[in-house]
């Protein structure tokens, strides 16, 4: 198999494993379907927005929990936003943590929320690095003169 073929294979395998492990769900595939020659950077653009948005949200959440009195309404609003954005790009594990987080928020359960926040940071950084790896693979395929396989 030539280089392009190998890289394409790697790409398909990697995407499949990310789905299997629950990092990405079908929504990510939907995003990929929306990318074409007229919008070749669509997925990277949306995901970049997600990264920016998420990092801000994680900061906001961290400071909310550093306050003497936690404003659960504010926390809930942040988590709601995070849940929405992760759902929109198909970051399934992140979204699932948000769902649990919301429940703890509603119960004003400090410990539950703290655990969720930690978990959220973890899952976010995981999916971020995996997506960056995926994008790098794409770049390599294109640099080698190939095209990114459609899944």
């Amino acid at each position, binding site marked *: 198999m030539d280089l392009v073929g190998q890289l394409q294979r790697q790409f398909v395998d990697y995407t499949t494993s990310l789905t*299997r*492990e*629950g990092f990405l*769900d079908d*929504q990510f595939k*939907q*995003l990929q*379907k*929306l990318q074409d020659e007229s*919008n070749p950077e*669509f997925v990277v*653009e*949306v995901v970049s*927005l*997600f990264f920016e*948005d998420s990092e801000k949200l994680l900061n906001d959440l961290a400071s909310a929990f550093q306050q003497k009195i936690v404003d659960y309404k504010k926390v809930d609003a942040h988590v*709601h*936003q995070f*849940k*929405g*954005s992760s*759902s*929109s*790009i*198909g970051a*399934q*594990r992140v979204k*699932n*943590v948000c*769902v*649990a987080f919301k*429940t703890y928020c509603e119960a004003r359960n400090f410990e*539950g929320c703290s*655990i*969720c926040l930690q*978990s959220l940071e973890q*899952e976010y950084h995981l999916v971020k690095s995996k997506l960056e790896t995926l994008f790098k693979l794409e770049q390599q395929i294109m640099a080698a003169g190939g095209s990114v396989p459609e899944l």
Partner: protein
Amino acid sequence: MGLSTESQFHVLAVDDSIIDRKLIERLLKTSSYQVTTVDSGSKALEFLGLNEDKHKDTNQLSISPNSHQEVEVNLIITDYCMPGMTGYDLLKKIKESSSLRDIPVVIMSSENVPSRINRCLEEGAEEFFLKPVKLCDVNKLKPHMMKTKYKNNHQNPENQENEEISEEIQPQPQQQQSNNNNKRKAMEDGLSPDRTRPRFAGGLTVASN
């Protein structure tokens, strides 16, 4: 592509999330619609030419409803949960306006709450989409926009007459059938992704199954 009537349809998308705005814009443009996105209900009303001064029914508005708008809008798609003015509030304001009420409105929400869905449909929303919105959802928009196009071609000061005609062509939101289907779809769609994953503490170790 230039010959298709689709390129003439203009959708106004309202969402406070920049990610969702980007997504809906791409979905709509893929379907060959012109798109304008705004990040709030008040900006949407501003774009539609409705401000507090030009209140409801001045002669000017009912005779030539589009004269104060820069561009004709064939459909409005809005998120439900937004700070300040919710999608529901926006829907109400649009339906209360004699110049805007004929524009079909679609609501999007990340939450599957049947009472919320019903309320929106009863207030006159044509469809209720669960987020994340997909291409197959966007494919449902055309008939609603065609209805407006048809009405605009027959525009006359007697807006009442046009409303009756449109009732015959397309069932009003009050009707059971299509809305029950939408509701059901929304509820089914809402259930399936969550059903596969436990919601509570046990599910936190979301480490793969």
